[in-house]
């Protein structure tokens, strides 16, 4: 929306507009190049300017495609009867991931798959592309497509795609990505968030790994010095990423099993109030150069404990050796609640507007159901993830020792699906607004949560069809 000023100073206005437009163009360029504020796995700025596109099948000799039709693209002519598919990923922060997914795509012989790597705000880009006819055929979605994408028919149902492997996939993930009995995404790998701490720093301060929220607060305080903060929960003080763990820590949830509001327990308000005390105590790291999803704050000694993800473990091991341990988010107190960690998964999704939905489904089946070798490579060779297929999780050797093994153990004991399907973005915004007000500004938790309740109920009434 742009309105012209009604005053008649012609020349300055047009000059201002010129700068405005020039600024916008520059802004767009920079925004594409810098993905630092979007907070995906490893939110560090990518050096790639704009989306990087590479075409699979362009070089022969990729693993498994020798002599197959896929190499036909090398001569510039697509093999007869072949289809072109485009596949989108968000920019994983770990080195080598992009080359890996391009290699997988190159190995597919039945279609020419073009991989697009998207630094920056991936979700918004996908959402915009799905409105047009030129979006991706296959793309990944965090925890599967949103309920609105499903209900408005933007994504194609994939029922039956898992075939005989159905029982091998982690059931809770398959359930999370299904709506009314139809599957809408194939889980690629399981991601988990958890608390990571520097063993040496805790030893030095004489602090034991905390098992309750009170112990966590005390530990954060004891670990804080003039140079190092005790705990890092994200630059928003945990308002964004700690909602789930705080709810679970008192035995509550976003929604109940039958999709009603799940945070009415008065302990929820108490727990968020305590989070405000933690925020105000001065032992939280705030305003760090990278956010919670990036391990830099921990490796650079800005904090002694950090909430982050399993994907950071290769970097943590490289930088810190064995000087780090893992914990779930602690239970609220000795008598209330239980420890927890959120688990989620990127799911491979097919656009309903794809020119060849069947070919896109076939590719998803090939890559994320049948091609177990590439799935295993993807899970443990770059950032660490847990394979979505149970039989593969047993084969992931790198997840069998050290902190990664402890993490997998925590996942199995205390894992909660990140957010339920009917927890819409509007509900999420209402909740994180309220939690920010509670945590940062000390707003009354009960009143703030009552406001969230109203929004969530309206959203539930809207999407529960």
């Amino acid at each position, binding site marked *: 929306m742009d309105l012209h000023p009604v005053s008649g100073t012609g020349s300055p206005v047009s000059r201002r507009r010129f700068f405005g437009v020039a600024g916008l163009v520059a802004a767009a360029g*920079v925004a594409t190049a810098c993905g630092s*504020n979007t907070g*995906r796995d490893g939110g560090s700025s990518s050096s790639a300017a704009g989306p990087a596109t590479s075409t699979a099948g362009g070089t022969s000799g990729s693993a498994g495609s020798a002599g197959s039709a896929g190499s036909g693209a090398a001569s510039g002519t697509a093999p007869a009867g072949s289809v072109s598919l485009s596949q989108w990923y968000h920019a994983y922060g770990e080195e080598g991931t992009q080359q890996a997914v391009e290699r997988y795509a190159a190995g597919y012989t039945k279609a020419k798959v073009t991989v697009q790597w998207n630094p920056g705000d991936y979700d918004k880009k996908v959402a915009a592309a799905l409105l047009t006819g030129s979006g991706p055929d296959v793309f990944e979605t965090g925890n599967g497509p949103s309920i609105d994408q499903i209900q408005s028919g933007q994504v194609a149902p994939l029922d039956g795609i898992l075939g005989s492997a159905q029982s091998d996939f982690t059931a809770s993930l398959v359930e999370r990505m299904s709506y009314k009995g139809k599957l809408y995404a194939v889980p690629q790998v399981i991601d988990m968030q958890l608390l990571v701490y520097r063993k040496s720093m805790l030893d030095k301060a004489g602090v034991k790994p905390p098992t309750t929220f009170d112990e966590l607060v005390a530990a954060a305080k004891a670990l804080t010095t003039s140079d190092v903060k005790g705990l890092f929960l994200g630059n928003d003080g945990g*308002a964004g990423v700690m909602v789930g763990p705080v709810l679970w820590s008192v035995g509550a949830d976003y929604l109940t099993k039958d999709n009603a509001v799940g945070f009415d327990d008065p302990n929820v308000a108490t727990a968020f109030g305590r989070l405000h005390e933690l925020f105000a105590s001065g032992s939280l790291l705030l305003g760090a150069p990278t956010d919670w999803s990036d391990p830099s704050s921990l490796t650079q000694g800005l904090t002694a404990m950090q909430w982050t993800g399993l994907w950071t473990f290769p970097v943590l091991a490289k930088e810190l050796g064995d000087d780090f341990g893992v914990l779930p988010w602690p239970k609220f107190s000795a008598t209330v609640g239980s420890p927890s960690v959120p688990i989620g998964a990127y799911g491979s999704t097919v656009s309903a507007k794809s020119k060849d939905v069947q070919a896109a489904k076939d590719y998803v089946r090939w890559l994320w159901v049948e091609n177990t070798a590439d799935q295993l490579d993807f899970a443990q060779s770059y950032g660490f993830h847990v394979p979505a297929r149970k039989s593969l999780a047993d084969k992931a050797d790198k997840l069998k020792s050290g902190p990664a093994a402890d993490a997998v153990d925590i996942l199995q004991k205390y894992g909660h699906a990140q957010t339920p399907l009917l927890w819409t973005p509007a509900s999420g915004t209402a909740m994180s607004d309220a939690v920010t007000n509670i945590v940062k500004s000390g707003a009354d938790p009960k009143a703030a949560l009552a406001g969230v309740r109203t929004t969530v109920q309206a959203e539930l009434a809207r999407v529960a069809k």
Partner: protein
Amino acid sequence: MAAPGDTLSSARHGSGAVPAAGRSRPGWGRRLAGQQNRNLWFWVFVGPFALGLLVFVYIPIGWSVYLSFFDARNTVTPTVFVGLSNYREMLTDPAFLSSLGTFVLFALFIVPLTFAGGLGLALMVHRARRFKAFFRSVYFLPTACSYVVAALIWKMSIFSGVRFGLLNTVLRAVGLPPVAWLSVTHPPWYWLVIVTLRLWLQVGFYMILFLAGLQRIPTVLYEAAAVDGARPGWQTFRFITFPQLRATSAAVLVLLLINAFQAFDEFYNLLAVAGASGGGGYPPYARPPLVYLYYIALGNQQDFGHGSAGAVILALVIAVFTVLQGRLLGGRRRSDEAAPAGRRRTHRREADA
């Protein structure tokens, strides 16, 4: 008005006076092209811009108005007409209303500060005896910097919350604890970051506008004032310079206010955080209207109905503000001046005919 034009015109309009024999009527193409192909050239020069304006401004505005009457989620070709309910819901949405409050607060800071800063700089540069061009360029240069780049510098370097941020290093040197500038709300340090950023970026531009205004003030006025006994300095500024800058001041205020309304880049780049995995979050404070609408319509919510209704409301508010301000501050005077001049021209043309 060149002679050939007149000839052509008389040939066209005066066909009654000139015998028709031997003169063919100009073809449709000629007539459309106009005298000296003026119409043609008009469209050659104006056409691309008009087309761009139509395609990238007016059609989207129209479409947005259309969307605002529909339940449009995850689609821009909606089918469910909902009348005014999107407007009703936006106008009762506490988050949207608070975003308008944020704008008012922001404007209260940035408009007077930039106005005073721009005017002050202009007065100083105008009086400078040496290096005038140098100072003019130096103060103007930040205007060329992108808001995104500046926001990253402000966030990552100057106002970084960690101990090695520029300001925190200074604080540490004088024995004060570091401050997480963008993360705390008590006290609301984030306003300092946001306002200084925009001030640095735009003050030079408004300085140039004021400089242009200053240069147009006739020297005789100052001489006359001096003869009448006005002391240089405050008195001269109060009674000569400032009143003479009336038109410039009005334009500057309107531009400042509109720009403040449209604030997006620095807010988004300074304050958006990772949030929950995949979401991307923005705190509920310091969230101006455009940022809020961005999250509703273009963010994960993809709710174009409510987003468009909000955008239309915002556009109307800006329009009302602008018109009111134009009325209050000298818009009228200029139109008074313009009218007689226009009339004079018309009279002359009639006399010529």
